[in-house]
C-alpha cells in the first residue's frame, strides 16, 4: 500500500509538513483519514498557532510529492445545501 503525507496548511503561507506519512489503501481512505484527523483537531486541540481550525486544510501528496487531494477542514461539517 502507498504512503501518503498530510501537510497541514494553517493560514496564509503557513504550512506544517508531515514528515512521517500514513500507509493507506487509496484516495478514499486518504479522505476519510484527513476528515478524522481534522475532526480530532477541531474537537480536542487548542494551538497557539491556530485561532480558527476552519481556515486549515490538509494537502495530501504521495511519496513522489504529487498532489492527491486537498481537504479543507470545513468538509467535516454537514452539507448545508446552497
Amino acid at each position, binding site marked *: 500500500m502507498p504512503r501518503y503525507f498530510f501537510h497541514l496548511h494553517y493560514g496564509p503561507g503557513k504550512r506544517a509538513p*508531515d*514528515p512521517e506519512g500514513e500507509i493507506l489503501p487509496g484516495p478514499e481512505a486518504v479522505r476519510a483519514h484527513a476528515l478524522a484527523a481534522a475532526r480530532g483537531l477541531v474537537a480536542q486541540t487548542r494551538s497557539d*498557532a491556530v485561532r480558527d481550525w476552519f481556515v486549515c486544510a*490538509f494537502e495530501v501528496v504521495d511519496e513522489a510529492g504529487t498532489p492527491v487531494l486537498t481537504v479543507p477542514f470545513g468538509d467535516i461539517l454537514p452539507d448545508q445545501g446552497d
Partner: protein
Amino acid sequence: MAHPPQSVVRNRLLKAFPPEDFARIAPHLQSTDLPMQEPLIRSGVAVEHLYFPEDGICSITASGSDGRVEVGMIGREGVVGVVPVLTGGGQVPHDHFVQVPGLAHRIGTGPLCAAIEESDPLRRLLLRYLQVEVVQVRQTAFANASFTIEARLARWLLMCHDRLDGDDVLIKHEFLGMMLGVQRSGVTLALQNLEGAGRIRSRRGCITVLDRTLLEALAEGSYGVPEAEYARLIEGV
C-alpha cells in the same frame, strides 16, 4: 553480580533511601534492561517486581477505542509499581511500559514489602513519593484540560529531559500524538512552532532540547509543580 553501592546508584529515589534501608534491599536488587515497549506492569495483573530506573522512561497509559494515552511518566526519580505494593492493592488498572529504553534495578515485591514492614522511615519515604506521583497525575489532568498543544508538548519534553542523559528525545510524531492524546498533525504543528522559536530542533524520530528556559516559559504553570513537590518531599530541598 554484586549489588552496587548507594553512592553510584543514579536512581534519585534509591539515593534518598536511608542508608540502612538501602543496605536492607541491596542484596535483592537485580540490574535489568528496559527494552523499548516492554510492559513492566500490566493492567489487572498482580505486580511481582518493581523497577527503579537508572535511565530510560516508563509511561503509564490508559487505553480506549482510539488507542493509548499517557497518564503518567516515571524515570530515574522514581519506582515503577510501588502504588499497589504500598496500598496492598496488589494490582492497578493501567499498563506501564517502556517508552525510552534504558536500565533499571529490579526488586521482587516480597523483599521490598519486608523492608517496608521493618522500617517506618522507608515507608514514609515511599508514601511521600506516592504523593509526588499523585500530584503529577493531577497536574497532567490540569495540563490536558487547560493548556494548548504547544504548552503540553513543552511540558512533556521537559519531563523527558529531566529523566534522560543529554538533550535528545528519540520519538516519532505518531507515538508522541498517542502519548499526548492528540492527532499526529497537531504534534507536527506544535513541533514546528517550538522549533521556529529556537526552543528545540525536530528531526524525524528525534527532538533535541535546545533551550530549557524558553520551554519552561512556554509550558507556563503546566510544568514544575510535581517537580517542586519531589524536591521538597524526597530530596528535602
